[in-house]
Each structure stands twice: as C-alpha cells, then as structure tokens.
C-alpha cells in the first residue's frame, strides 16, 4: 500500500466511532464545558485524531439527547457563562460497554498482529529454504 492509500485507509476510520467513548471518559473524570473538553481531549494521549469543535459539540448534543450526559448553563464567575456537561448513570453504563468493546477490538488487533508476525516469519523461513543449495 503506498502512502496515499494508507492515508485514505486511515481516513476511512470514522472519528465519531470512538470520540463518544473519549468524551464520556473525560466527563466521568470531571464535568466540563465544551471549550475545556476540546482542550482536554486534544491533550489526551488516547485521542483518535484532531478533535474539531463541530465534531465534539455534535457528539455532546447527541449524547445529551440520548441521556448519556446532561447539561445546564453555568454562570461564569469572572468570564462568560457556558453549558456545563456531566456524565449520567446511563452514560457511565455506556462507558463500560464502550470499554468492553474497545478491549475486544484490542484483543482482535493483537491477534491480527501476532498472526501477521507468524506469516512474516514463515515467509522468511521459506525464502531462506529456497536460498539453500
């Protein structure tokens, strides 16, 4: 696969699939408003890509509507008021489901990598066998 194809392949993995889990985890750690969440998400070592504000806010609204998080307007003490988001009990359950799903995906990826390593090793052994007189 050349670089262009690899880039297209990476782009085909939708950030929306995991950003909800990432946001739920961050909100589980502490309630936050969107501005702060975007900063925390981009500073997290588990982020799956650059989180643009449109994607973050769209997912926050979706999860708010679905009852996974709840929000209210918080008056700013020295700055602007902002909508503050926090995790609900349903959100905590959803985070557990996400974590199980990600653990399964991790196991599958590890199996894939192990199988690939075996494949490469067998190819090398075959090549070495061919080279012997």
């Amino acid at each position, binding site marked *: 696969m050349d670089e262009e194809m690899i880039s297209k392949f990476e782009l085909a993995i939708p950030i929306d699939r995991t950003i909800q889990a990432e946001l739920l985890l961050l909100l589980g750690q502490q309630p936050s408003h*969107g*501005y*702060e969440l*975007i*900063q925390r*998400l*981009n*500073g997290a070592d588990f982020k799956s890509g*650059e*989180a*643009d*504000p*449109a994607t973050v*806010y769209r997912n926050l*609204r979706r999860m708010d509507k679905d009852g996974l998080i709840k929000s209210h*307007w918080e*008056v*700013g003490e020295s*700055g*602007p*008021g*902002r*909508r503050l988001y926090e995790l609900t009990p349903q959100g905590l359950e959803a985070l557990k489901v996400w974590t199980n799903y990600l653990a399964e995906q991790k196991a599958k990826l590890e199996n894939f990598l192990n199988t690939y390593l075996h494949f490469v090793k067998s190819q090398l052994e075959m090549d070495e066998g061919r080279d012997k007189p």
Partner: protein
Amino acid sequence: MIGNQKTLKIIHAGALQRVVENCVELLIKQNPGLKIKILGVGSREGAKRLLSGEHYDIIALADQALFAELLVPDLVENYFVFATDQLVIGYDRSSRGSKEITQDNWVDTLLDPQVNFARSDHDLDPCGYRTLMVWQLAEKFYGRTGLYEAMEAACIPYSIHPKSLDLAKALFTGKVDYAFLYSSEAEQLELPYITLPSKINLSNPAYANFYDQAVVTVESKIPGKSVILHGKPIEFAIGLSKDSQYPELAQSFVDLLTGSEGYSILEECGLIPC
C-alpha cells in the same frame, strides 16, 4: 397577547442577522402582538453604542470578550457563549484566480497584483481584527516572514467595508475578489470559500495558546486610547441589558436561542451551537 406598546430591542453582530431574524419570528409566534426591533452592526461598534447611551434589551455579539472588556458589570450582568465559527476566505465564481485557489496557495493568490481582497474594520468588527490575527498566525504557521505586512499593504482599505456582512455583499457585486468572513456567512449566502488550517482559523480551543500570540491594537472605550487584543478561539455570546424594561421577554429570546429550536437555527445558518 402582548400589548402593542411593548417593543423589544435587539442589537446583534451583522453575522448573526439570519439567526436573529429566525429566532425573532419564532418569538413573535409565541407572543402575538410583540414588536421587536433589531439592528445588525459590527460587534465592537454595537458594544460602543451601548456605552454611548443607546438602549437595547438584548445584545448578541461575535466576540464574547467584548462583554468583559466593555459591558460587564455596568450594562450587562451575565453573558453566555452560544456558538462558534471559523474564519474562511470567501469568493465568487467570477473572482480572479477562483479556479486555482486552494488551502495551500491562498497567500500567493491573494498577493497577486491582479487580485483584490478585503477585510472588515478592526475597530468596529471582530471579523476585522480576527483577520489581522489570522495573517499574523499564517506568517508563523507557514514560516513566511513579511506575510502579515504584505497582506496589510495589499488589502483594500478596511474602512470601505465596516462589517463582515458588507464584504459578502461586495463579493456578490464583484467589487471584491476575495474576503475574510465567517464560514457561516459564506454558507448562508452560498458563496464558495477556502477553509484555512485550524491552527490559524481561530476555530479550535486546542490551539488557544498558539492563537494568543497574535496581537492587534484597536480603539478602546476611551476616545483616543487604544487597547491590545490577543487571538482567541471564535465564540459568539449573548447577554441581557441590566436595565431591560422586559427582562422576562428578553430572557425568553435567550432561552429560545440557546434551546433546541435555537440549535437548529444556528446549524441551518452554518454556526456551531455550543
């Protein structure tokens, strides 16, 4: 039924014209007989109008920082961030170089002597000082020393188009090839536009520290004095006047804008509700 004598007055960023009009329409449906007067201006100009004694019940501005700088605590008690946006380069299909311009070559396209481009007035309109910030950030981002000064020298005088919505009209009439606008304005007017990298388009709080390096001097609230503004992510905010005669009605407007109906309106108008 609201008595005919009640007239709610709203002053808003020109970029919010369609958003405010749509919300007003809904509020009037909910309150038959209510009269609402709206005025769209550059947000910095709008805040200064309040300082000079003009009265409005609701103030919706394109830069949340204007509230703290000019209006709180004397004229407004609380204000709320309700939407974000990004700066883009809008153009018309007949603009010179429009078939070739991309996110990678926009600087060279705009600096072509055959091409003209414009920005709004930084003393009146946040889009104006944000454009200057974008140019400063672009100089750092692309590593092109002198980019900012070159853009300033080549730009059409800013006084010709006081606010960003004026720029959009100039694009339509062909007076301007390119203009620095909010993406929501370009979307609403169905103008084609070039998006800029998020590190320079003032859209993403993740780059707040980088944006902070951009510095623009504008007229302060004291005549003859100036104030220094630093780059920040774009945030629109709304507040109620402390001396509103109809605080409940004014609050209804804010509730509408920041509720589910307002969300839909903001999204339809190309803004990001937050």
